[in-house]
């Protein structure tokens, strides 16, 4: 069963949706919204990959991006001091550089799409895309993929360790300290230490 027209229409709609939501990422004013617009854009790209018979890669795009954008939204809210992400903020910066880079990459990609010669090789009917992808990943290219995987994991752990060493209220190892009421002042809201009293006597002033 083949519906070339339906596939074409689905491709055009998904491509437009991907571009629209990708544009919205930069027009919205909240990091959480921006993350989820990006997620919508990636989901549309994943669906296009399904249309291209990349059955595993398309579906993998859904769950990879689902978890990734969720984690990204969460970490941006945590580290960028914009609690809850509902506060309006400017999502774009370095305007000149960004506009230049955008135009340059658009021209390059559009030139590739128009000028490059793409091979016209229809998939053989008996091709099993998922097993052949698995054989590639865990066969001849196993060393490459496994080393890249371990390097990425080490990078992620390292970045979290480095960035969480100093939290919002001071060094992570020293416990939470609220900032002072004036720059360099005493931590606000902390009860004064009475050393002479001792004996686990804690109360709020």
């Amino acid at each position: 069963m083949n519906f070339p027209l339906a596939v074409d229409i689905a491709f055009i709609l998904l491509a437009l949706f991907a571009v629209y939501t990708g544009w919205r990422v930069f027009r919205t004013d909240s990091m959480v919204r921006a993350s989820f617009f990006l997620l919508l854009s990636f989901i549309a790209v994943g669906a296009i990959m399904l249309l291209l018979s990349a059955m595993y890669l398309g579906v993998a795009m859904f769950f990879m991006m689902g978890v990734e954008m969720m984690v990204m939204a969460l970490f941006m809210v945590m580290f960028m001091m914009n609690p809850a992400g509902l506060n309006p903020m400017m999502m774009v910066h370095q305007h000149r550089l960004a506009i230049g880079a955008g135009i340059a990459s658009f021209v390059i990609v559009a030139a590739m799409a128009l000028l490059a010669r793409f091979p016209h090789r229809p998939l053989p009917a008996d091709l099993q895309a998922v097993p052949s992808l698995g054989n590639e990943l865990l066969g001849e290219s196993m060393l490459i993929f496994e080393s890249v995987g371990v390097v990425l994991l080490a990078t992620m752990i390292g970045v979290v360790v480095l960035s969480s060493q100093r939290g919002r209220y001071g060094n992570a190892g020293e416990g939470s300290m609220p900032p002072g009421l004036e720059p360099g002042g005493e931590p606000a809201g902390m009860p004064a230490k009475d050393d002479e009293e001792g004996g686990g006597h804690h109360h709020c002033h």
Partner: protein
Amino acid sequence: MILDQLVWPLTWVLAALVLGPYLLAVLDGLVARSLGPTRGPGIWLAPLSRGAWWLIQHTNVTEAPDGRAWRLAPALYLALAAGGLALVPWSRTWVATDIATSLVLWGSIEALATVVIFLQGWSANTHLTLVGAYRYVALGLSYILISMFVLIGVALPAESLALTQVITSQQELWNVLRQPLGLPLFLIVGLAITFRGPFNLADSTDLAGGTSADVSGAQRLVWEFARSAMLVAFSGIATTAFLGGWLGPWLPGPLWVAFKMLAVLALLAWLGPAFARITPERCVSLMWVVLLPLAFVDLIWAGVEALL
């Protein structure tokens, strides 16, 4: 052919989508009655009257919510549940979404559910709903790895990522016996993805309803319906992955699937109230320190079993 590939599978998916949540509510009523002397309207009518009450209730508004996301979140959660149900093979031929990677697609539905539940709590722009949303993300990121390892374990003997192949690989022995750790771990995932019972961190009473604290009216109805529908879809996948799906003597396949799904739903409806809710911090520790290593053991077990 169109009857086999489109009409019958879709009929079963839609019937399960409508009847499943209702039957789950009835089961909840039965469990509640058996655990305590509750007096009220009959268990068969109570879900309908509660639904009608939500439907005619006025819809609450909060201060400066993200309106579109807030209205869409319950509908998206329901859409994910319907997508999950569409993956369930009702018989060898009646499969609504028969793709080579249906097992992975269920994994992505679990991942996207985390996003949708977070959106429900975040976009209301109120305190308690936001706490519920963050709690759910902590829970969601914890259970998703357990779910993936358990599902990979199911795919190993089938040598395929298609749910139909997973069922045919259980001809001799169902996965519930072949991989004894699999189903218990997966049931925990089911309770977590619908935040019921011990894993009700997102919509719990200590947050006055959590992510749905400020949601009322038809929006609330869709949210609660979607929560139940997601558990129905989950029971369909659990049936497929561990209980042999359509396999069974005498009766036609779709009926076997429906009976097994009901059995899983009844078990989950009992498990929910039978265990006390766990504190969020301890819940996350439990997931990473105890249940995730158990999922590793399950995966190693499945791998060794597949090699032998």
